[in-house]
């Protein structure tokens, strides 16, 4: 069962007014793959991730998640078990203590009263502390989240994903606002955790260097179309140069 397709994308297109964001894009993702989406700005990376996160609907084509069309995951509690999202560091509620932001990963499983009660006496605290230990923040549970640095906040977001345990992690520019050392740190942690938990990652990245270093497969988009789709070690510098080339230079 190791070659199971967790995600199938069939001929999806998406237009904004008259501008084409994605045109009949298709690819298949196997369970456990670490995929980096690369390409110049405006290539459609974020649009693709938003379609997968069901924030947007495709104009045509279909997305199949674990054998079922994505439209059947209308219940967000069920969807949260399949698909998790991590973006830039603005994803956390700054006023809450770190532990509650981490425990928010359990909201899909908790009823209303349990989640309300947890704000006063944290529930499943040990699991949350373990998650914080895994991301290297064991002693910050009761700190206000907004007091943490950008890199630390991104680790809290990772700890929340650890609580949520989705099968697919969508990461939209997860390290865009971090310095190189922090970015390395976060990507290393994200891919390591995903491997340990047998999760599939699809991350959009600006940096090709990070994409080659941490991911197993690179999918390059240009002008809403697939430019190449190759294992990370088969991508050549020439291809990358073509991918980012400006039109004027042709």
């Amino acid at each position, binding site marked *: 069962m190791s070659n199971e397709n967790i995600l199938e994308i069939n001929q999806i297109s998406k237009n904004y007014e008259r501008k084409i964001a994605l045109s009949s894009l298709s690819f298949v993702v196997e369970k456990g793959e670490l995929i980096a989406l690369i390409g110049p700005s405006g290539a459609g990376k974020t649009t693709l991730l938003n379609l997968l*996160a069901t924030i947007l609907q495709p104009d045509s084509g279909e997305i199949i998640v674990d054998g079922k069309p994505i439209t059947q995951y209308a219940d*967000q509690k069920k*969807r949260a078990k399949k698909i998790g999202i991590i973006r830039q560091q603005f994803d*956390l509620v700054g006023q809450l203590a770190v532990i509650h932001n981490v425990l928010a*990963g359990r*909201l*899909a499983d908790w009823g209303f009263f349990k989640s309300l009660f947890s704000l006063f006496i944290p529930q499943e605290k040990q699991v949350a502390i373990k998650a914080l230990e895994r991301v290297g923040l064991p002693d910050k549970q009761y700190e206000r989240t907004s007091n943490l640095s950008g890199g630390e906040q991104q680790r809290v977001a990772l700890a929340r994903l650890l609580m949520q345990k989705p099968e697919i992690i969508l990461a939209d520019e997860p390290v865009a606002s971090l310095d190189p050392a922090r970015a390395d740190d976060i990507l290393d942690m994200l891919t390591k955790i995903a491997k340990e938990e047998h999760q599939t990652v699809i991350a959009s990245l600006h940096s090709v260097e990070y994409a080659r270093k941490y991911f197993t497969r690179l999918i390059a988009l240009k002008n809403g179309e697939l430019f190449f789709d190759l294992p990370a070690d088969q991508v050549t510098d020439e291809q990358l140069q073509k991918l980012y080339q400006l039109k004027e230079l042709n």
Partner: protein
Amino acid sequence: MLSFDLHKRKVLTLFLLLLFAWSLFGVNWQEGVLHSSGIGTAAEIFAAMLTPDLSLDILRLAVESSWLTLAYATAGMSLALILALIIGVLASGVLASGKSSRTLMKGSFRGVLGFMRAIHELVWAWLFVASFGLSPYAAIFALAIPYGGILGRIFADMINDVPEEPILALKAAGASKLQCLFYGYLPSVKNSMISYTMYRYECAVRSSAIMSFVGLGGLGYQIQLSLDDLHYGEVWTFIYFLIILVILIDGWSNMLRKRMQL
């Protein structure tokens, strides 16, 4: 276009200034601006500012009526806070599911809040005194309704201004609407809510003092009685007590705000 507007505005300013100057000719300066002994009375009142009546009886009366004023304000504000939290959250529309139900909810509950605060607390006081008689409930309800309307409106606006990203992230993690409220919206606006409520509490103390002119007891009522008796020294004692109350609440709210920033 802009320069034309600015130009028009200057013409309007000039016109209004001329209108004001012309209106001054309409005033009869010889009689009626101040009544005959007006200046004398004003001087007496302000002279008494430095010599408040500090006799034991008056001080005891001042403490008692300050307590009453504070009690009305506190009870009224507590009720207002509960009303504002419930109606304010509903009026923000974050609990609605569809677009049309959100518009309906926002519209109707914002309407309720508008009705509550459109009528001044003094008018509510008159209405309630007419129906309950001179009971503390009249004062408390008269404060709670308009203040609930004001607080609720501000709470709803604050909730609507919460940044979208953390809420989307909570939804993606599988949080329901109520869970989003308690994990996203309310923690994000909690501090501003407390600051604003404290400010309104200060206003409520002043309102509560003024409302007692209706006859409900409290600092305002005592001020009115002393004014009628021309005991200006007593008037200032009560006014100083009111000022102390307001300053104390301001200090408390500053302390709270400092603690929240930690």
